[in-house]
């Protein structure tokens, strides 16, 4: 304990040390603003800062380097300017860019003594982890949500890497729960945004189905009723109001009536009540309201219905009015967006529609309704964020960086910031875990890919496994020394044609058939990532539990057995958010995924238990984009 007992950490000594060091900060959001400030105060003089985001109003309660007048500008650039006002002599290079860009290659990373992450999403964290491993630069990783926070240190070969332990996957729900048997409001919200909103105003090419289905027949989750598609079109001569009413009666009324006919479904469940407009609204209630825009010109059903309090839980009647009014407004004021609407938490009208639709459905199913404020948080996966936790976490990041830079790596700790003291501790350091020898990112563990080689194609493997599970962006796939696939810009034309021809070919039909025993190599040059996939043929897959028709495991031992039950490896089952089409989550600057339950006080200072999180089989599921609840 050199630091605690000899007084080595005196101000003079470390300031002289850090002045020469060059550090990279990834993220200029909630943690980033605090971190940049604390770094320059501590004496750091050479800082690169990468952030692709621009400033939003909801950042201003904690990202103190930004003002209202900066809304819409680059976070990295504005943060740099703000810090130079109190420390003009510091060299800060601001990159308004995605950290995954090619310009930030391994040589770029190698110029830094340490990389400090204040990131908001799993995908970017995994990428930076790989770049740091490839460049041999230590990484300090962080995350916060509400009063909870966490700082970890990753040193190649010494500690676990960011991907050594499984991360909780974004929460998802079985399709039948969403389409047929909701029991919580979140199920209704997922239904409202992924099915109702998408059906009425989204891309018609995307299949979604609004009918309530039985649980016993999941294949029907995708409708094959030819009338259904037409039903949701506005008919010629039909007023927007009549259309909205027709949709209401169908999705909250008739569909429930139909679903009730399947007695099996309701044997052990509360039967839902169909809602028909004539029972919900009187004629006066239904009369059209006043002005359709709020003060700032946003199209809003709440504004036109004079509903002011976003915290208030609307009556069933008001929900019905908002539902009808929001449909009318979409058709009349947002007609150019209709056909391309995807849920966005900053789209006020979409939030109102989703709230009303979810509440009406919830009411049918006997589930308590919620305010538009709460529903927006659930639908938009809005992460709870406060300035104080970010400030504390940024301070802890700098302390870890100081230890790394003065070669006191043995003193580095993983620190939890907790809401309720565990024992007497509010800030709880624990020793860092060693690398996981089975980690496919920082060790050379081969992976086993089970699939039906008679039907599987490269396209499927790239989408379902290489991108989604391995987190590879630009894959190069080889069989021995033969290139089978390559992604990127500067590829010869004849090769592009060759790869395209292979893309949809069945594995058994390849020039050298891809069957049991074949080893595929997957590489990403940019990430300097490389791993081997040992192919293993299997005829059938459980449609319920293995809907992807392929299973990736990390256990080489299973190669030698002929029949192996599919056992998903936890570490491989954490698809990134970006790939689930929830781009809106990327706007958040803090990330709940990072925060793990803190150990009990008794284990503080001792080795952290390696808890392998239980993972769900990759069922056919709908993503809820709901924040993973964190309990400490």
């Amino acid at each position, binding site marked *: *304990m050199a*630091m*605690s*007992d*000899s*007084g080595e*950490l*005196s*101000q003079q000594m470390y300031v002289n040390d850090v002045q020469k060091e060059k550090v990279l900060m990834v993220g200029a959001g909630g943690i980033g603003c605090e971190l940049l*400030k*604390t770094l320059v*105060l*501590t004496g750091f003089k050479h800082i690169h800062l990468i952030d692709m985001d621009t400033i939003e*109003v*909801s950042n*201003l*309660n*904690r990202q*103190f380097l930004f*003002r209202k007048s900066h809304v819409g500008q680059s976070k990295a650039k504005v943060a740099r300017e703000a810090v130079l*006002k*109190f*420390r*003009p002599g510091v060299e800060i290079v601001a990159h308004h860019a995605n950290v995954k860009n090619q310009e930030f290659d391994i040589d770029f990373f190698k110029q830094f003594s340490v990389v400090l992450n204040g990131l908001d999403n799993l995908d970017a964290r995994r990428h930076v982890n790989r770049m740091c491993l490839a460049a041999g630069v230590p990484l300090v990783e962080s995350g916060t949500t*509400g*009063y909870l926070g966490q700082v970890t240190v990753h040193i190649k070969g010494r500690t676990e890497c960011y991907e050594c332990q499984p991360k909780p996957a974004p929460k998802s729900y079985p399709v039948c729960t969403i389409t047929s048997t909701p029991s919580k409001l979140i199920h209704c919200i997922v239904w409202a945004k992924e099915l109702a909103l998408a059906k009425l105003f989204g891309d018609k090419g995307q299949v979604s189905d609004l009918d309530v289905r039985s649980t016993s027949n999941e294949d029907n989750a995708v409708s094959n009723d030819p009338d259904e598609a037409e039903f949701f079109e506005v008919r010629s001569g039909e007023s927007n109001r009549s259309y909205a009413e027709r949709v209401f009666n169908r999705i909250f009324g008739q569909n429930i009536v139909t679903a009730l006919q399947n007695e099996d479904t309701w044997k052990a469940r509360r039967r839902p009540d169909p809602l028909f407009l004539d029972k919900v609204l009187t004629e006066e209630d239904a009369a059209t309201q006043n002005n359709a825009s709020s*003060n700032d010109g946003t199209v809003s059903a709440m504004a036109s219905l004079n509903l*002011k*309090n*976003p*915290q208030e839980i609307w009556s069933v009647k008001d929900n019905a009015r908002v539902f009808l009014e929001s449909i009318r407004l979409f058709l009349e004021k947002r007609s150019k967006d209709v056909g391309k609407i995807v849920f966005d938490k900053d789209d006020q009208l979409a939030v109102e529609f989703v709230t009303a639709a979810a509440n009406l459905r919830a009411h049918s199913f006997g589930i308590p309704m919620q305010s538009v404020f709460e529903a927006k*948080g659930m639908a938009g996966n*809005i*992460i*709870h*964020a*406060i*300035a*104080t*936790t*970010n*400030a*504390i976490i*940024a*301070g*802890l990041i*700098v*302390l870890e960086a100081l230890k790394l830079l003065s070669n006191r790596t043995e003193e580095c*700790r993983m620190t939890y*910031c907790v*809401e*309720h*003291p565990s024992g*007497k*501790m*509010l*800030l*709880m*350091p624990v020793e860092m875990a060693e690398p996981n020898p089975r980690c496919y990112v920082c060790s050379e563990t081969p992976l086993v890919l089970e699939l039906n080689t008679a039907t599987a194609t490269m396209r499927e493997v790239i989408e379902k496994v290489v991108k989604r599970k391995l987190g590879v962006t630009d894959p190069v796939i080889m069989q021995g020394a033969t290139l089978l696939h390559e992604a990127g810009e500067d590829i010869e034309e004849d090769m592009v044609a060759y790869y395209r021809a292979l893309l949809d070919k069945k594995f058994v039909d390849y020039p050298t058939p891809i069957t049991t025993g074949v080893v595929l190599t997957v590489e990403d040059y940019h990430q300097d990532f490389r791993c081997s996939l040992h192919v293993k043929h299997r005829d059938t897959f459980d449609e319920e539990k293995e809907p992807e028709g392929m299973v990736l495991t990390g256990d080489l031992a299973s190669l030698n057995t002929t029949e192996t039950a599919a056992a998903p490896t936890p570490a491989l089952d954490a698809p990134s958010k970006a790939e689930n089409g929830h781009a809106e989550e990327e706007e958040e600057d803090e990330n709940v995924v990072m925060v793990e339950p803190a150990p009990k006080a008794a284990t*503080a200072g001792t080795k952290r238990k390696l808890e392998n999180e239980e993972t769900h089989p990759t069922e056919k599921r709908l993503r809820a984009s709901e924040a993973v609840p964190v309990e400490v």
Partner: protein
Amino acid sequence: MDPPTELLTEQEAAVYDRQIRVWGVDAQRKLSKARVLVVGMSGVIAETCKNIVLAGVGSLTLVDDSKLTLEASAANFLIQFDELEGQGITLAEACAASLRDYNPMVQVKAEAGSIQNKPDSFFGNFDAIILGRSSISLRKHVNELCRKQGHRIGFYSVDCRGTCGSLFVDLKSHSYVSKRAKDDKDARHELTYPSLEEALSVPWKSFPKRTSKLLFALRCLEDFEHAEGRQPGHVSSQDLPALLAFWKSACEAQKVAENLVSEPLFQRLLGSGSSELPPVCAILGGIVGQELIKAMSGKGEPLRNYFFFDAADGKGIIEMVAPK
């Protein structure tokens, strides 16, 4: 019964959206009525002010008449570099300008004059008072004044000494709401706090064995500064022999073993002198900020009644110190 919910303005709802998701509208409304006084614009106080202004307290009054110097700006990011050249502006005025800019919805003002010369009635204008580095006698004086007022005034004293930090809290009596683990329902709790005088009177011998070493080391250092007639923080490594002698007699008086605190910890505290380590300021300022938010909003369990942080072991520890 609480009065019917007042609506937040559109601007409040937009800016405070993410934190309202943590503590709720009701807490935000209460917070926006809190009047806070801070004394002594150190690095840790700058951090604290930033946090509570961003959170949206009602008003913040700063007291610090000292001049803008390079030293004063060492850990204080509220001072813009070009202001250092300017004349006639106090530290409180410079910091207030930055804080107003952070959040125009909060009233921030600089109060001229020294805190020692304020009439007793002055303290009654606030709901919380945060003292930065200050002598033990000033802290006791202000704490007593707070406790005498008709309404509850939250009292905080906080200091960062190099790599170490400490916080004392006196909320007199406090009631708060928090979610019960068993059913996730709101439940009301009552807490009582000892005064600073009472907390200081607890004999060392009665402390549990695992009490933070910083508690004893910092008390000894503050008593030493007082006995030597120094300003708080005006110490250096050269004071070590005298401080160790002072410690020895303190241990004899308190009937505890001298090895309760190790010499290197004293070395480290003396070596820091009056300087603050910025990451420790950030951590400590974050804790003070969140404690004040909990106390003013009545939402969440506030800590009782000391908090210590030491960068050497990275532990942030709560100690409850009250007479039996």
